[in-house]
């Protein structure tokens, strides 16, 4: 009934200023990407789908429960600088 697949997208803390380590997971597989804050997420979505053999139309990417679109970048998605959430665990950006 629902189109299948819903990889969750999570962003571990940023190690350096410009690059973020981003984990994309569907709860079975995990793929890590290192991208800039301004990089469009479409790159990462395409790479993830390629690697998992999935069709882009059949998957949904979410960050903290909100849909993320291919045209988004970490800058547009994340309103929570890591400094504001010291105790939130490793998956905040």
């Amino acid at each position, binding site marked *: 009934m629902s189109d299948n697949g819903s990889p969750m997208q999570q962003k571990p803390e940023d190690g350096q200023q410009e690059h973020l380590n981003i984990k994309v997971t569907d709860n079975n597989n995990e793929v890590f990407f290192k991208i800039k804050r301004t990089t469009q997420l479409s790159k990462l979505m395409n790479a993830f789908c390629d690697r998992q053999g999935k069709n882009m139309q059949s998957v949904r990417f979410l960050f903290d429960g*909100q849909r993320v679109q291919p045209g988004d970048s970490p800058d547009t998605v994340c309103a929570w600088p890591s400094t504001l959430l010291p105790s939130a665990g490793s998956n905040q950006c």
Partner: protein
Amino acid sequence: LTSHDFGTLLPHMFNGDAKGWLNDNIINEYLEILVNYAQRQEGYVYVRGKGGSTPPVHAFKSQWYTSMKGNPSGTARWARPMHLFGEKLLACNLVLIPICHHSHWRLIAIKPKDRLIEYYDSLHGSGREYTQLAKEWVREVLQKQFVEEEWSICTNQRSKAQANASDCGIFTLLNALVLLRGEEHNRVLVTNGMDDARLRVAATLL
């Protein structure tokens, strides 16, 4: 939303599969529209980041279920940007969660002020698995503020029953609609195919 999505709602008009099983895009988008409207009615304005206040109502995406199964604490964190994390949750009237599992749509309603979890299913399942998962989510969100004895799960099924094997998605949406309006669930009129309701949902989406 694409014509493929609308094909799941109005299969005859959009060349979709005749079963008319709603997909997640239709469900999530419609609930978002309803919730945004309800929030505006209450004068709520969402502010990103610090300084934002708790919304009177909120709906999570249907991916909540798969996420919750794999990563409960991560899914609890979905509440944070929505200003529903920790004791803030208790200031909210209604949290809606649509769930699609085993090719069937159902709706969880959490009423934090009443410390109540409800389950709406047009095939009248008990939904124990889903209400327990919702309670687990509440526990993860409230953390130290969670008092087990305060919370109850309503086992009284109030959803109308669907008349065929295709309309569970529509019932899920209509049950959300009457909840948001504070109406009774017998307001939902049952027909085979729910054609009027499907058109109404489509009109709202457009």
